[in-house]
């Protein structure tokens, strides 16, 4: 979700195989560089492998070009990588959030074969995506400061995953501003 010169990216913490909960501290939001984060929902193994591959590509990019990747460029890279596997895809929906040129927030999501969807306010993915769309739509306001943004994102996330039996067990929220990153674990219903 986009705020004023900042963005928030959040996920739930459940890792499960259908009805069985395997872990309650699973990390789904990953850092690419200080101002670029990616959240990967879907199949856990694909999320981890895709993340490792992206970090690999980004590190090479950093070494060759001596600079960090811009969020828009990174989104194009993810989209290209996903489409390379068009007929045997990664079962992941990424959510990409970053601060671009002049620290302008940038967010986008894509489907598992790389169809990019840019947004100015919020993007969602995962099993609770429909609830999340509803919650975000009603709770979102433009130009929120980091503290207010954190409240809004946490409320929207908790409200949506509570209605989803496959998601929950707390929330993990990152608030990223040009100067710092705040990482907070949100306590929710543990069921």
């Amino acid at each position, binding site marked *: 979700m986009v705020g004023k010169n900042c963005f928030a990216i959040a996920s739930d913490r459940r890792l499960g195989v259908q009805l069985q909960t395997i872990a309650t501290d699973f990390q789904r939001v990953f850092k690419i560089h200080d101002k670029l984060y990616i959240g990967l929902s879907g199949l856990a193994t694909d999320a981890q492998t895709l993340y490792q591959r992206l970090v690999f590509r980004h590190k090479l990019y950093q070494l*060759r*070009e001596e600079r960090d990747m*811009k969020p*828009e*460029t990174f989104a*194009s*890279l993810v989209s*290209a990588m996903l489409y390379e596997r068009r007929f045997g895809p990664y079962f992941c929906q990424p959510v990409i959030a970053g601060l671009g040129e002049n620290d302008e927030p940038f967010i986008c999501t894509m489907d598992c074969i790389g169809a990019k969807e840019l947004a100015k306010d919020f993007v969602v993915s995962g099993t609770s995506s429909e609830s999340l769309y509803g919650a975000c739509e009603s709770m979102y306001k433009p130009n929120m400061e980091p503290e207010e943004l954190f409240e809004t994102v946490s409320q929207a996330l908790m409200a949506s995953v509570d209605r989803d039996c496959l998601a929950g067990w707390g929330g993990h929220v990152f608030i990223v501003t040009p100067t710092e990153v705040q990482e907070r674990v949100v306590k929710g219903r543990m069921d």
Partner: protein
Amino acid sequence: MGDSQYSFSLTTFSPSGKLVQIEHALTAVGSGQTSLGIKASNGVVIATEKKLPSILVDETSVQKIQALTPNIGVVYSGMGPDFRVLVRKSRKQAQQYYRLYKEHIPVTQLVRETAAVMQEFTQSGGVRPFGVSLLIAGYDDNGPQLYQVDPSGSYFSWKASAMGKNVSNAKTFLEKRYTEDMELDDAIHTAILTLKEGYEGQISSNNIEIGVIRSDREFRVLSPAEIKDFLEEVE
């Protein structure tokens, strides 16, 4: 003297540690038509002689300066056909970068990849090095840039450089006239004067080619009419 025994094969070092084929490639470049480039504070200019073998040749069909991307251009000294192959490969690499990142390739990256291609041809079986040196001029987020790439695959960034037949005179002339804060129009005048220095015969708007890139990041080859204007200013 022992070197000449090793000049047959590209992939064999001579006892003095040289790859003689690359030396020969540089000789081929050195006998090509003069070309030069100057990096100004707000752009880059590249220029070359366009001496045609006969007056019957249609000079509008000869294009020695080519654009690799909308904001990067290149000129060469040496063998024309080798140049065309490199231009094709470089353009493809630039487009592949764009397809992946939806961002125009930075000048240094394109130079690196072109140099890597040229190096490949110095370490493979059954091929010969490219008989061209390139001057790649571009304008990206790091400002105006000018690079020279040699047949060996080594590349250097230059403030001003020349290659080809008249290289030593041209470089001396450029050394004397180059200033750090030169503007592009001054650089174009200097480029024309440098070409004039070593030109056998009368220089005109039809027998030189000039390419410029300004801060608008659009690489353009100047038309004969525009070259004529600059020539008149120089006279």
